[in-house]
């Protein structure tokens, strides 16, 4: 009986092993094993088409019919430029909004009490940085010597094409055209800035030329990642690291597809989880585009400063 049992075990486990191999192959081919996350409902199809045009491509769902494949190819070719357009436009818009919000809230330009001190502080900063630039045009220096203030003709920053647009967003216009030259000239001496100047003029100026520091952008991205990992961790019972990993892989448009919402735990609200995931992705992509927009500006700013400093060093020592 014992020998019979071991014989039985041996042959049965060989059989089972081949059976298991067949199951693995079948799942690889696209058999879903009765999982709901791998079926074509409307919300999952929505997520699928989003993963196509954002080039994430989780691969949790993939077309099996030949027409599905052909359509996917054409859909991707049409949809990707469209999505890029969306990203660039929305990124720019969000960046301009964020700049305004940053100027108003974080630098406290809106509240009247702080603004004067802030402005004075920043003004001195700019003054020192501006003093480093040796490459002043001749007429500029002449003007400063003659103590007129027409240096608004050479603004310290390259003229921004969005400037007019920005001003229209940040609402409070400078009260009169007469005031503008005084407001624009950063490197003018302190006594020029008369107490009669309203705070509003400072607000408009800051919102236009302010550059948001890189650390803030990185903090926003990390915060968005953490937020996503928290939400998905709550819904899908992933741990924190897995959630953050999923969010990162999705937002960087890598999309391995080893973690997909609605994959592990069967929930009746799988539809909503797909929709939330798509919304998260759309918003996140736009946010990343915004951060890149802001960071690019800041890097260009740094680069210009570095160039100026280098030039100054060369000039001075030689």
């Amino acid at each position, binding site marked *: 009986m014992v020998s019979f*049992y071991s014989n*039985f*075990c041996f042959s*049965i*486990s060989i059989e*089972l*092993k081949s*059976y*298991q*191999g067949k*199951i*693995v192959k079948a*799942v*690889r081919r*696209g058999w879903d*094993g*009765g*999982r709901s996350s791998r079926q074509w409902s409307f919300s999952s199809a929505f997520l699928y088409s989003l*993963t*196509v045009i954002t*080039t*994430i*491509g*989780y*691969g949790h769902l*993939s077309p099996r019919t*030949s027409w599905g*494949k*052909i359509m*996917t*190819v054409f859909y*991707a*070719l049409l949809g*990707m430029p469209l999505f890029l357009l969306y990203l660039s436009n929305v990124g720019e818009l969000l960046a301009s909004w964020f700049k305004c919000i940053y100027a108003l809230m974080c630098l406290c330009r809106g509240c009247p009490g702080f603004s004067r001190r802030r402005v004075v502080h920043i003004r001195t900063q700019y003054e020192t940085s501006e003093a480093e630039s040796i490459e002043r045009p001749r007429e500029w220096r002449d003007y400063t010597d003659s103590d007129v203030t027409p240096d608004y003709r050479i603004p310290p920053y390259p003229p921004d094409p969005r400037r007019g647009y920005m001003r229209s967003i940040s609402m409070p216009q400078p009260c009169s055209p007469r005031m503008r030259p005084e407001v624009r000239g950063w490197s003018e001496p302190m006594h020029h800035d008369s107490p009669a100047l309203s705070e509003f003029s400072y607000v408009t100026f800051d919102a236009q030329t302010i550059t948001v520091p890189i650390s803030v952008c990185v903090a926003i991205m990390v915060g968005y990642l953490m937020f996503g990992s928290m939400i998905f961790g709550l819904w899908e019972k992933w741990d924190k*690291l*897995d959630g*953050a*990993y999923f969010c*990162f*892989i999705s937002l*960087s*448009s*890598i*999309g*391995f*597809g*080893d973690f997909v919402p609605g*994959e*592990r735990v069967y929930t009746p609200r799988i539809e909503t989880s797909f929709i939330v995931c798509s919304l998260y992705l759309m918003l996140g992509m736009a946010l990343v585009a915004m951060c890149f927009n802001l960071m690019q500006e800041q890097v260009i700013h740094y680069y210009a400063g570095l160039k100026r400093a*280098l030039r100054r*060093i*060369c000039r001075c*020592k*030689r």
Partner: protein
Amino acid sequence: MDRHHTHSSIHGSYRSKDSTSTTESDPREKIKDCLRKFIAFMFTQVGVGALVVCYAILGAASFMHIEKDSPDEQLENVLQWRQNCVDELWNITNEYNILNHTAWMLNSNKVLKVFQNNITGAIHLGYNGRASEDIWSFPAALMYSLSVFTMIGYGNVVPKTVWGKIGTIAYACFGIPIYVLYFCNMGKVLAKTFKWLYITAHECSRRDDTLLEDGEIQAIKRKITVPSTACLWVISFYILTGTIMFGAWEKWNYLDSTYFCVISLCKIGFGDFVPGANIADSAEGSHLKLVINFIYVLLGMGLVAMCYNLMCEDVRVKVRELRQDLKNCLDDITLKITVCMNDTKYYHQKQTRNIK
């Protein structure tokens, strides 16, 4: 002396000792030249391409090291389930023996169903019938790191350990900018080359017809932009090559391999078709295929960048021309309308005069 110091500090050269030698200008100039050449080389496509390949190899080695000896709990679970299944089958056989066939069938079916569900669950959790040593071979790890920093993300091989995941995030953070640099550089260089080729071919074919008007040829030559159809031809030729190659190796049909090529080059990367991943048994062949797929994808990305560059230029020119045409057209129309109005006015005046 002062100048020496400034020089070495500015350029950050390590060999400041050399620059203080007796012959003043020569070594300094040499170092300057060397540095300049080195930097220029690093920003050519060769330097950036080498950087990308080195980065991929580095990533492959480190991921292989991290992931290779990770204990796979799914593998043990599957073994356990199989053992349980065998035992239960034995019990059923003992109970009913062969005398009650239908009852035996019913019960063993039930047991097998449980087993099957367990296995599918395990597959969804990442089990694929292979141990981690087999999965994380060097070419597969190379393919993995490529799919991370090109943002393709096939997902046929994924990290399972905590450190693997953290490493992937860090690797992507540094790898994606390098890849973007490669993409831009490669696109520019290839676009220049292709444009030059196109213009030479164009000239050669045109020379016979319009040999006489020399001045006009010169004028035309400067304005030539590569039409987007040429780019599309290049891309479709590349995809066709890939289709035939992968179709022959992997025994996919042509639709599937075209689909794979497009999905890869568009950086979507579903991972339902990956070369060398489907067949577990032929290890050596699949390794070679993975490496060739690596080269195919990298080159293809460069080509896509090239086409993007050229098509942007073409579209810009076309839009400008269209705008010019539209303006001309509008001018024409307004001119015609005014002329017409004048005519009618004139006609009316004539009529009235006639009536009078």
